[in-house]
């Protein structure tokens, strides 16, 4: 009896999660006349015209490419710098380590709105404005601390005896780190990459401020279209659905890591 009640609650919650997404999808395969004309749970004449509009217009689809590029760069940079740092934090005491760790975390707490203008000026002055690397670096502000934090948790779960044995066996640090240690925390790296992807992919404020044309992310394209014409609901919904797809794919790939990996580190 209790078993069934539990599952009803879960089912209700999942329906609550999926309804708005379904509605977005539903709208994306309707024509604008049907959207504004009648309330239909299922589209009368499903059409892919809205998707065709997006996938054939460079102004739209370049937004997706730009977003992918800077998110990719950001995940790579975050992981590369965070891996050695997390190792240092999990294995060694060094001067100022606790303060440094806390300072890193405070950056995760800084509202992006605070940094808008300074970021704009900083990246303009070094000529990086409207490049993918600018957005990727700006997103490092919150992703690198997060990556260090998560990885440190995973690394602390690996017994230190493994390090010591490897050094006794004559492994140098770089060789030990790349051939033994990194494979051991695979799932931790998966979870970290997932979080970095997530926070970089969903962020709008900094990405919009630091780009104008060449590196304009899809999320900015969407808001500008809303303010300009405002009424093409079908295309807007289709663009929304397409921004969900990469996220859904990433979740699908890390689904086993989410379940197993979360318990191993602290996150």
């Amino acid at each position, binding site marked *: 009896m209790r078993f069934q009640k539990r599952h009803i609650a879960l089912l209700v919650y999942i329906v609550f999660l999926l309804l708005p997404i379904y509605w977005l999808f539903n709208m994306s395969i309707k024509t604008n006349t049907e*959207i504004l004309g009648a*309330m239909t749970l299922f589209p009368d004449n499903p059409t892919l015209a809205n998707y065709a509009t997006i996938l054939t217009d460079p102004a739209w689809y370049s937004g997706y490419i730009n977003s992918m590029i800077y998110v990719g760069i950001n995940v790579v940079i975050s992981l590369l710098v965070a891996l050695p740092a997390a190792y240092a934090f999990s294995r060694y*005491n060094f001067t100022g380590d606790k303060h440094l760790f806390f300072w890193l975390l405070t950056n995760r*707490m*800084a*509202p992006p709105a605070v940094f808008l203008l300074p970021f704009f000026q900083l990246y303009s002055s070094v000529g990086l404005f409207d490049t993918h690397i600018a957005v990727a670096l700006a997103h490092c502000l919150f992703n690198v601390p997060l990556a260090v934090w998560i990885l440190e948790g995973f690394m602390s779960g690996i017994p230190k005896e493994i390090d010591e044995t490897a050094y006794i066996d004559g492994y140098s640090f770089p060789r030990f780190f790349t051939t033994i240690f990194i494979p051991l925390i695979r799932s931790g790296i998966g979870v970290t990459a997932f979080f970095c992807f997530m926070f970089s992919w969903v962020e*709008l404020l900094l990405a919009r401020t630091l780009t104008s044309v060449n590196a304009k992310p899809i999320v900015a394209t969407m808001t500008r279209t809303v303010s300009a014409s405002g009424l093409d609901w079908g295309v807007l919904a289709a663009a*929304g659905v397409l921004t969900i797809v990469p996220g859904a794919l990433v979740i699908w790939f890390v689904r086993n890591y989410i379940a197993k990996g*979360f318990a191993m580190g602290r996150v």
Partner: protein
Amino acid sequence: MNKITNNKAWFLVLPVFFIVAISAIIPLMTVVNYSVQDIFDPQTRFFVGTDWFRQVLEDSRLHDALIRQIVYTGSVLFIEVPLGIGIALTLPRKGWGVSACMVLLALPLLIPWNVVGTIWQIFGRADIGLGGYTLNLLGMDYNYSQNPMDAWVTVLVMDIWHWTSLIVLLCYAGLRSIPDAYYQAAKIDGASNWAVFRFIQLPKMQSVLVIGVLLRFMDSFMIYTEPFVLTGGGPGTATTFLSQFLVTVAVGQFDLGPAAAFSLIYFLIILLVCWVFYTVVMNAGKREEQ
């Protein structure tokens, strides 16, 4: 774990230090710089000391935004944390259902924030949205773009929709780390469901819950994009939270000095609350262990 003292570890940390310093210290210094000067153009500027801070602290619009923000963040935590724990307890522990639930639950977290706003904009509209249409059909006069209360509730429900999954996933991770033996022992002892929850499950979830609460506090305190897309801070100022207010001052009115002073105060509030919460919880945890 005993750690070796070794200052060479700094070399491993340096890349992180540099990359975060570029993105953090230089902009932060710029903000500090603005907050104590009155800037007309790049050549003409005056040192004004703490005037901006005083002006900002006495600004009643800021007080209103701060109160709205506190009420909002409080509601978010009050609803999302218990709900997240509850949902985590209902999740299946093995079988194909685990993966399916993980994917479905994580989905809202991976949707760009402005798209979340768009989704709820579309969903909540009385004329074309399923949610708004249904509510009106049920006899409620629901319109989030006209009625402040409706707008506020919509933003809150949107946040619950968006972020409860994070709490669920974290709690679920904590629950999975409980060995089956604990449950068996509890069964033999004839422990009630509540006792199992209170003395086995909750303590195991404590450390992940701290992270969950901290993340939800920070992010809901900094919320900008979703209400911006959904309501634009309105109607009136019903959903103008701190970030929204800051952007209005800094970009809309181009008052750099007050905006910078406000930024620093804003940052300090978040820092202080996180620090106090973290310290209190960690000390409580240590006492319990002893």
